[in-house]
C-alpha cells in the first residue's frame, strides 16, 4: 500500500477505459467509478494510518531524477475532491452519454483524473509541471471532441492555459536554479524565499499568473465560459470541481513560501475580489444556464483566490472548506443543468418553466445546490462564505472592512444569480415533451448525491475538521493545532449581518429581473440577447491567436518557395557565406593529411564523372555517369584503408543503379531543358560552393592525430569483444545504440515508401517500342541473365551469410551481407521475363520489422549484464560466440527487408495506371522505325504530339 500504487492504479484505468467501453458501452462509467474508489481507498487508508506520507522511487540517481510523491493535509483534501467527484461524474456520464460507444471520452476523463492525482501528490517540481500540462491537454482534448464547432473554443482554452503552463515552467526553472533541488517540499522550505526578495517576487508573480490562468481569474477568465461547449460531465468535473481547482491548489501550496513577496497578497486579493465581482455581475446577465454557471465559477474562484491572498489560518480554513463546498454545489449544478437539458431539450432561462411540476425531485436538488451557492444556512456553502467574510475582515494587510464589503457586494450578485437559477424555472406551467425520469436516473443519482452531501455537511460541518484543518495548516504554514475548528453557527456577528444583507439585496435583484422578464414576455417583446461587453476576453484571445498565426505566415513567407531550388538555395548561400571566413583561419595544409599519386588519378575520375552527370542530356546517361563517381568513391575508400566502407559503398552503388533503372522507365527519356538563367546561377553557386568546401576541408581537417576514442577502440576491441574488425565492432558493440537508431531510420524510410506508394499511384508510361522485334522478346532477352542467375544467386546468398558470420573479425558484417543478399534477389528480378508479378512474394516489411525486433531483443538480453545492448559472450566447443552476432543478424534482416520492399513495389507494373491496361511490350509490336509518340501523359498532349510527329515525319 503506497502512494506509487495509488497513482499507478489511477493510471491503469486509462488503458482499461476503452476495454470497458467495448464490454459495457456507455455504462462503462460504473466500473470506472468503482475503479476510482481503489486509489481512494489506498490513500484514505494511508492517511488514517500514517498521516503525512512521502515516497521516492529513484529513476536516474546520478541526475537526481526520481518519482517523488508526498501526501500531506493539503494534498489529501484535493485527493478526496478529485476521486470522489470523479467517481460521481463518471456515474453521471453513463447516463448522460447517449452514443453507445465513446471510448475517447472515458479515456480522457480517467486520464485527467490520473493526471490531477499525480499533480496534487507530486513532490517533485518537474513532475508537478508535467502533470499540470497533462491536465491542460486532457481539458483541451475533451473540449475538442465535443462537437464540430468546438475547435476554436478548444484552441483558445489551450492558448490561455498553456501560457499559464509556461509561466509555471519559468517558476519551476527559477526555483530549481536558485534552491538547487527539484524536491518540492525542500524547495519550498528553502531560506532563499525570505532572504532573496527578487527571487521570491519573480516566482510569486509567475506562480500567481499560472494559477490565475488555470483558475480563470481576470484577465484570463474568458476561457472558462468559452469552454462550456464541452458536455455537462466535462464541465462538472474539469471546469467546476477539479481542473480549475488545480490553480487553487498551486496557490495554497506555494502560499507559505511565496507570501514572503509583497506582491503575492496584493495581487491575489485585488485580482481575486475583482474577479469575484466581475464574474458575479456577468453571471446575473446570462440567459444560458451553463454560461451563468461558468461565470459563477469564475466569481467563486475569485473569492477563493482572495482568501488565499489574505493567508491567515482562518482564511486558509475558509479556502479549504470553500473548495469542498464549491466542488459539491457546482458539480451538482452543472450536472443538474445537464440533466435539465437532456430531459427538456433546453437550458435557456427564458424557455424553462414548471420544472417543479415535471421533475420534482431534481428541482429540490437544484434548489439545495443553489442555496449552498448563495450561502444560505444550514448548507455547507454558508459555512465557507461566513469564514471568507471573517478572514477578509481580519486581513493582516489592513482595510479589512473594505475587502469584506467588496466580497459582500460580489455575494449580492451571487445570491441574485443563484435565485435566477430557480425562481423563473421552477414555477409556471409544465413544459411539453419532457423525457421521463427513467431516461436520466443515473444523472439524478449523481446530482442528488452531491446536493444532499452539501446539505448534510452543513449542520455537522465539524466532521470536515480532519480534512480541512490540516489542509489549512499546510497552506498557512502553521501547525494544525493553531487552526480553529469548523462550526455552522458562530452567533450573530458581522459576517452574518453582511450575509443577511447580501441575501436580501440579491433576492430583490432576482425578483426585479424576474418581473422585468415576465413583463417583457407578456408584452410579446423578444427577450434581448445576452449583453456582450465591447471588449470580450474571447475576442482578445481569438485576436491574439489570429495575429500569431498571421505573423507566423509572414515569417514563413520569407523562405517559402514552390521550387526545390528556391528552398535549397538558402542553406547553400548561408553555408557558403560562412565559408568566406575560412581563409582567415588558414593555418597551412594539415600535417595529418596526405596525398598520393593514386589520389590524383581518382580526382581526375571524379571530375570526369561529375562533368558527365552535369552535361548529360539523357537520364540514363546521368545515372551511368553517377556510377562513375560512385565507383571512384569506392576506390577512394579503399585507398583510405576502409575496406568495409568500400564494400558497403560498392553494393549500395549497384543497388542504387537497379532502383534508378526501375524508376527511369517511368520518366521521360531525356532531361527537360533548363533555362539558361537558372543554369548560369547554378554554375555560379556550384563553383562558389565547391571552392568553399575545399577551403573548409583544408582549414578544418587534418590538423589532429588519431582521436582518443579511435585509439581506445583499436587498443581494446579484441580484448573487450573478441572482434578484430574494429569498424564492425564499433557498429555492433561499442556504438550499437547508434546502429539500432539507424535501423529505426531505415524502417521509417521503408514505411514511408510503402505509404507513399499506397497513397499515390506510380506514374506509368507506355513502354518505348523497341527498334527491332528481337528486343521485344522478353524471354529471349532474359536468357543470359537467367543462366547467370541460376549460378550466381545461390553463390551470392551463401556469400552473404558468410559475410554476416565473419563480420566481427574480417570485412563483412550485417550491412554488407544484407546488401549482398539484396543483390542476389535483385538478380533474380532482373532475369525475370515479366514484371507482372513480384518475383519473390515475401512480406518484406515484416522481414524488416523482424530485424528490428531481433536487434532490440538482443539489446534487451544485454540487460542481464546490466546494460541495454551490451554483448554477452559464450564459448561453446572452443568457438567464441557473442550476442553481437545476433544483433548483426537483426541488422541483416532490417536492411534486407527495407531494400527489397522498395524494389518489390517499384518493380511491378501497376495495372490501374490510368490507361486501364497493363502495359506489355508484346501488346503492340512496333512498326520498325516508327516515330510514334510515346508519352501518354494527357490525351490532348498526345494529339498535339501526334500531329507534330506526323509533320516531323513529313519534313524528314
Amino acid at each position, binding site marked *: 500500500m503506497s502512494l506509487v500504487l495509488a497513482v499507478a492504479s489511477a493510471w491503469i484505468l486509462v488503458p482499461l477505459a476503452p476495454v470497458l467501453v467495448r464490454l459495457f458501452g456507455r455504462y462503462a462509467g460504473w466500473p470506472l467509478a468503482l475503479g476510482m474508489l481503489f486509489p481512494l481507498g489506498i490513500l484514505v487508508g494511508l492517511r488514517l494510518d500514517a498521516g503525512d506520507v512521502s515516497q521516492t522511487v529513484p529513476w536516474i540517481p546520478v541526475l537526481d531524477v526520481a518519482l517523488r510523491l508526498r501526501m500531506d493535509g493539503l494534498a489529501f483534501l484535493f485527493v478526496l475532491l478529485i476521486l470522489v467527484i470523479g467517481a460521481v461524474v463518471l456515474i453521471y456520464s453513463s447516463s448522460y452519454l447517449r452514443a453507445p460507444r465513446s471510448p475517447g471520452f472515458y479515456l480522457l476523463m480517467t486520464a485527467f483524473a490520473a493526471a490531477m492525482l499525480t499533480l496534487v501528490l507530486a513532490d517533485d517540481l518537474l513532475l508537478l509541471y508535467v502533470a499540470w500540462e497533462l491536465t491542460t491537454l486532457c481539458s483541451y482534448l475533451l473540449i475538442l471532441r465535443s462537437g464540430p464547432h468546438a475547435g476554436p473554443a478548444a484552441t483558445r482554452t489551450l492558448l490561455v492555459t498553456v501560457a499559464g503552463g509556461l509561466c509555471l515552467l519559468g517558476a519551476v526553472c527559477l526555483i530549481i536554479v536558485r534552491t538547487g533541488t527539484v524536491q518540492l517540499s525542500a524547495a519550498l522550505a528553502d531560506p532563499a524565499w525570505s532572504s532573496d526578495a527578487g527571487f521570491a517576487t519573480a516566482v510569486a508573480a509567475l506562480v500567481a499568473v499560472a494559477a490565475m490562468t488555470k483558475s480563470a481569474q481576470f484577465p484570463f477568465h474568458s476561457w472558462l465560459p468559452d469552454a462550456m461547449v464541452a458536455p455537462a460531465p466535462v464541465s462538472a468535473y474539469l471546469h467546476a470541481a477539479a481542473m480549475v481547482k488545480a490553480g487553487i491548489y498551486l496557490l495554497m501550496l506555494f502560499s507559505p513560501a511565496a507570501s514572503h513577496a509583497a506582491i503575492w497578497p496584493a495581487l491575489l486579493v485585488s485580482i481575486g475580489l475583482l474577479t469575484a465581482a466581475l464574474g458575479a455581475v456577468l453571471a446575473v446577465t446570462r440567459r444560458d444556464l451553463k454560461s451563468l454557471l461558468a461565470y459563477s465559477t469564475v466569481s467563486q474562484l475569485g473569492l477563493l483566490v482572495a482568501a488565499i491572498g489574505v493567508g491567515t489560518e482562518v482564511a486558509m480554513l475558509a479556502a479549504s472548506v470553500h473548495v469542498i463546498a464549491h466542488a459539491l454545489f457546482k458539480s451538482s449544478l452543472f450536472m443538474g443543468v445537464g440533466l435539465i437539458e437532456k430531459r427538456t431539450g433546453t437550458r435557456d432561462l427564458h424557455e424553462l418553466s414548471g420544472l417543479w411540476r415535471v421533475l420534482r425531485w431534481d428541482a429540490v436538488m437544484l434548489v439545495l445546490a443553489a442555496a449552498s451557492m448563495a450561502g444560505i444556512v444550514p448548507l455547507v456553502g454558508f459555512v465557507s462564505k461566513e469564514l471568507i467574510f471573517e478572514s477578509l475582515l481580519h486581513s493582516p494587510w489592513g482595510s479589512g472592512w473594505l475587502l469584506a464589503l467588496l466580497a459582500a457586494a460580489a455575494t449580492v450578485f451571487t445570491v441574485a444569480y443563484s435565485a435566477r437559477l430557480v425562481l423563473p424555472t421552477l414555477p409556471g406551467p409544465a413544459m411539453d415533451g419532457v423525457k421521463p425520469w427513467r431516461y436520466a436516473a443515473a444523472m439524478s443519482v449523481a446530482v442528488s448525491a452531491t446536493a444532499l452531501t452539501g446539505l448534510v455537511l452543513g449542520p455537522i460541518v465539524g466532521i470536515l475538521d480532519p480534512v480541512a484543518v490540516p489542509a489549512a495548516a499546510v497552506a498557512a504554514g502553521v501547525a494544525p493545532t493553531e487552526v480553529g475548528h469548523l462550526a455552522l453557527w458562530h452567533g450573530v456577528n458581522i459576517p452574518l449581518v453582511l450575509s443577511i444583507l447580501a441575501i436580501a439585496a440579491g433576492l430583490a435583484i432576482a425578483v426585479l429581473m424576474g418581473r422585468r422578464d415576465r413583463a417583457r414576455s407578456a408584452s410579446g417583446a423578444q427577450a434581448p440577447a445576452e449583453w456582450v461587453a465591447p471588449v470580450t476576453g474571447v475576442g482578445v484571445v481569438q485576436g491574439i491567436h489570429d495575429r500569431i498565426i498571421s505573423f507566423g505566415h509572414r515569417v514563413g513567407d520569407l523562405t517559402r518557395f*514552390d521550387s526545390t*531550388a528556391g528552398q535549397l538555395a538558402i542553406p547553400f548561400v548561408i553555408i557558403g557565406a560562412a565559408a568566406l571566413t575560412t581563409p582567415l583561419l588558414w593555418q597551412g595544409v594539415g600535417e595529418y593529411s596526405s596525398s598520393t599519386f593514386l589520389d590524383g588519378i581518382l580526382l581526375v575520375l571524379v571530375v570526369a564523372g561529375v562533368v558527365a552527370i552535369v552535361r548529360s542530356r539523357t537520364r540514363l546517361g546521368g545515372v551511368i555517369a553517377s556510377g562513375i563517381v560512385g565507383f571512384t568513391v569506392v576506390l577512394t*575508400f579503399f585507398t583510405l584503408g576502409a575496406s568495409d*566502407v568500400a564494400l558497403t559503398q560498392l553494393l549500395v552503388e549497384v543497388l542504387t543503379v537497379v532502383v534508378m533503372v526501375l524508376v527511369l522507365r517511368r520518366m521521360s527519356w531525356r532531361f527537360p531543358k533548363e533555362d539558361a538563367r537558372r543554369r548560369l546561377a547554378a554554375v555560379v553557386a556550384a563553383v562558389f560552393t565547391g571552392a568553399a568546401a575545399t577551403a573548409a576541408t583544408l582549414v578544418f581537417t587534418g590538423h589532429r592525430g588519431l582521436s582518443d576514442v579511435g585509439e581506445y577502440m583499436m587498443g581494446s576491441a579484441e580484448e573487450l569483444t573478441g572482434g578484430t574488425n574494429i569498424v564492425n565492432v564499433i557498429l555492433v558493440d561499442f556504438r550499437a545504440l547508434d546502429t539500432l537508431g539507424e535501423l529505426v531510420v531505415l524502417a521509417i524510410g521503408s514505411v514511408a515508401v510503402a505509404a507513399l506508394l499506397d497513397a499515390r499511384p506510380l506514374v506509368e508510361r507506355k513502354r518505348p517500342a523497341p527498334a527491332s522485334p528481337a528486343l521485344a522478346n522478353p524471354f529471349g532477352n532474359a536468357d543470359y541473365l537467367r543462366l547467370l542467375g541460376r549460378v550466381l544467386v545461390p553463390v551470392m546468398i551463401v556469400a552473404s551469410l558468410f559475410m554476416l558470420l565473419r563480420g566481427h573479425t574480417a570485412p563483412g558484417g550485417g550491412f554488407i551481407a544484407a546488401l549482398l543478399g539484396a543483390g542476389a534477389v535483385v538478380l533474380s528480378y532482373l532475369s525475370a521475363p515479366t514484371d507482372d508479378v513480384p518475383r519473390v512474394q515475401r512480406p518484406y516489411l515484416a522481414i524488416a520489422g523482424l530485424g528490428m525486433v531481433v536487434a532490440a531483443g538482443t539489446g534487451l538480453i544485454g540487460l542481464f549484464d546490466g546494460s541495454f545492448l551490451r554483448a554477452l559472450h559464450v564459448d561453446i566447443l572452443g568457438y567464441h560466440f557473442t550476442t553481437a552476432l545476433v544483433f548483426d543478424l537483426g541488422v541483416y534482416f532490417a536492411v534486407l527487408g527495407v*531494400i527489397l520492399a522498395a524494389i518489390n513495389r517499384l518493380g511491378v507494373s501497376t495495372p490501374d495506371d490510368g490507361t486501364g491496361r497493363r502495359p506489355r511490350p508484346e501488346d503492340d509490336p512496333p512498326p520498325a522505325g516508327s516515330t510514334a509518340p510515346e508519352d501518354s501523359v494527357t490525351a490532348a498532349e498526345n494529339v498535339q504530339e501526334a500531329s507534330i510527329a506526323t509533320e516531323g515525319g513529313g519534313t524528314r
Partner: protein
Amino acid sequence: MILALVIGVLFGGSVYLMLQRDRLRVILGFVLLGHACNLLLFSAGGTLRRDEPLGSDLDPSVTADPLPQAFVLTAIVIAFAITIYLLVLAVTGPKDEDAPEEGTDESAAPVGTLEDRYGEFGVPVGDTDPYSADERQGADR
C-alpha cells in the same frame, strides 16, 4: 590536399544539380552530396594513416581512425534509403513531372519553347523511344 579537391568537386556538382528543376537531377545531386559528406568525414579522421583497422596489435601511428569509418558506413546506408525515397517521390503522383501544363505553382512554367521540346527538325526530342532515338538523330549527342 587532393581529397579536399575531390570534396570540392563533389560539392560543386551536387549544388549545381540540386538547383535544377528536374527531380532526377536533384536526386543525383543528393547522391553526390552524400559522397562529398562521407569523404569529408574521412578527411576529418586524417588521411595520413591509411592502414586498415583490421586484426590484432594495430599500430596507432599508421592505422586509419575506425570511428569515421563506422560513421560513414551507417551514413551510406541511410543515404541509400533516402535516395530510394526520393526516387519513389519522383515517380509517384497522378501526373508526370514533365507535364507542367497541369502544374499549379507559378515556377512550373512549360519547359522551354515548342522548338526546344521538339527539336529543330520538329521531331520530339523529349519523349521518344530510347532504342531508336540515337540512331534516328545520332548527331544530337
